[in-house]
């Protein structure tokens, strides 16, 4: 309703005495939006080298009830997945996102694992996805949507396994945004925000009944992160 739009904006402009000050204010806003200036960054998030960053990611993710396995190379993924599923008595069957980062996984090494590439449906118990980045500060996965990474794969399966390369782990949310902004191909011109950016810290939970924390409210009951240390893959 354009009428309401004009009325609301009119109210705001009058309250802010915008008449006459509009140009200066618009310049202030424009500069602020372009600068992407970070505010205070918690010191504990940025202290330390690569190993400390990976360590912090692991500590914080585990604190949020995620589990972590560190692998030397992407070649170890099938064995790690098989072990994980066996330990939890889960069927050896999973849906994998068509993410190019996951292409080098040698699934053929474990022929018992039945895997399907594509979008998750309601019956999938286990899903495996890649990730855009890991945020060490809070042990958080940063996942972005796209043709190769449908968002529902992060939420529908009861068990979410995410593959994260060690060099994808950044210290803070601000570093994550910086990576995202610079990930746009030059041919695409200006940066466009992906449709969905999911920050995921541990498995789903609720405390809505007597504030008792229960895992697995509506999203995954478990989150398992495979950190690949090999810098040369992918």
């Amino acid at each position, binding site marked *: 309703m354009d009428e309401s739009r004009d009325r609301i904006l009119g*109210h705001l402009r009058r*309250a*802010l005495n915008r008449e006459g000050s509009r140009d200066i204010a618009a310049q202030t806003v424009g500069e602020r939006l372009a600068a992407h200036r970070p505010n205070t960054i918690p010191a504990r998030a940025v202290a330390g080298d690569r190993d400390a960053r990976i360590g912090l990611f692991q500590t914080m993710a585990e604190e949020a009830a995620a589990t972590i396995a560190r692998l030397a190379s992407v070649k170890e993924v099938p064995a790690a997945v098989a072990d994980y599923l066996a330990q939890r008595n889960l069927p050896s069957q999973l849906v994998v996102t068509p993410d190019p980062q996951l292409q080098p996984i040698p699934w053929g090494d474990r022929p018992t694992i039945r895997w399907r590439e*594509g979008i998750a449906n309601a019956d999938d118990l286990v899903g495996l996805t890649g990730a855009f980045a890991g945020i060490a500060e809070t042990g958080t996965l940063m996942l972005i949507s796209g*043709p190769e990474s449908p968002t529902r794969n992060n939420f529908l399966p009861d068990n979410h396994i995410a593959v994260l390369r060690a060099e994808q782990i950044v210290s803070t949310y601000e570093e994550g945004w910086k990576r995202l902004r610079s990930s746009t191909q030059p041919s695409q011109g200006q940066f466009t925000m992906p*449709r*969905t950016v999911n920050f995921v810290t541990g498995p789903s939970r*609720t405390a809505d009944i007597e504030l008792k924390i229960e895992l697995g*409210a509506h999203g995954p009951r478990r989150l398992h992160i495979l950190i690949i240390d090999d810098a040369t893959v992918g």
Partner: protein
Amino acid sequence: MRASSRDFKDNARRALGDRNLAAALTILKRDFAGRRSAAVARLPEFEQLRDEGRDIKNHVLTHLDLYLETFERNVMALGGQVHWAADAAEARAQVLAICRAAGAKTVTKGKSMIAEEIGINEHLEENGITPVETDLGEYIIQLRHETPSHLIAPAIHLVKTQVAETFRAAHTQLDAARPLDEPRQLCDEARQLLRPKFLAADVGITGANFLVAETGSSVIVTNEGNGDLTQNLPRVHIVLASLEKIVPTLEDLSTLLRLLARSATGQECSTYTTVSSGPRRPGDSDGPEEYHVVLLDNGRSAMLGTEFQDILRCIRCGACFNHCPVYGAIGGHAYGWVYGGPVGAVLTPQLIGVEEAGNLPNASTFCGRCESVCPMRIPLPKMMRHWREREFERHLQPSLYRAGLKLWAFLARNPPLYRVATEIGAAVLGWSGRSRGRFRALVLARGWTKGRDMPAPEGKTFMALWAERQKQKS
């Protein structure tokens, strides 16, 4: 929803007699406050972040027109639509029109206080569309035909046995002998029953914790993942947000996220933070085909530039609820409208009128805990005082109360007279209460002494004692 804020005193009295509520609130006070202070202690920069959070929101509020225009432009550039709603009725009409155009039969909902404010569920039901709440707490209270009693824990007024009774009454298709003693079982039952609803819904409605001007994004913060299933699976996603949810950039968002979860639940961060921008893109295999943002004013623009502007910084974390002795005694429903607790005491008189909600800003001891924990440093007690002043200006209090205030004001403006009056008062009360040391009942203060005794003064005023001490010193 119909407001019962006028009946606050009766509501509060009833709440104080409710044993289940008292048990539930005891858990709330213990857990939330403890978790918050532990989380704050782990982040040395917390106080600095509070300053920055306040400054970000103040900057947005003084440039709100420009940021809203930027936000709208960026939503549209991504193929989304923005609907401006001056009041609740307009917002309801807009949501219904979108649902009808989508041919919607059922609508899933993530948690949204704006949805409560505009009463969208009743409106959809009246028009033949079934809304399904998917946040566990919201689901429970929808089954009970209740309203949320807390910003982030809507069913916090209930104990688990009440939830079990509700589920048994509502889920008659399940085995009546099933065990439902623990939150785990209740949680699993809701998960199992809601899963098909997520998949069947035609429209998903969520709120927004933030709107990012830079990218035209809406942001939801949840722990359950219900908001994500709500907005990802149906063909249409509607975001309900009020004007003041804007933040300039993704960096500013990051700062506010560091404050939100710690203040709300004491978590380092919530499980899911989701930033959504427009409908699905070419090539995408999931996501909504339509993305709508309903921007609600409903009295907020009228607060800009007034003594109540600071309340527009609120990020709805609920910390003020969790630390308020009044909320902790009576819970959220007694406040009689959507927003309870200290933030409700300031916001509700603006949104539904001080005539209707004048009791709320009076239900405070001004202990100041709300302000001391507010991540946005909102001076809540000061604003409650502003409402009391407005009430007085508009002659809304009973005449005896007004006469008392006038007498007080007269004495307070005449210090020598004030001193004499209080000396006489202290002497009389001290003398008449000397045997018991307390009063069971007091003239003109029967309401106060009904639930407690008034300690008798020692017979001298503070100022008199102070003067004596100074004399002894010299």
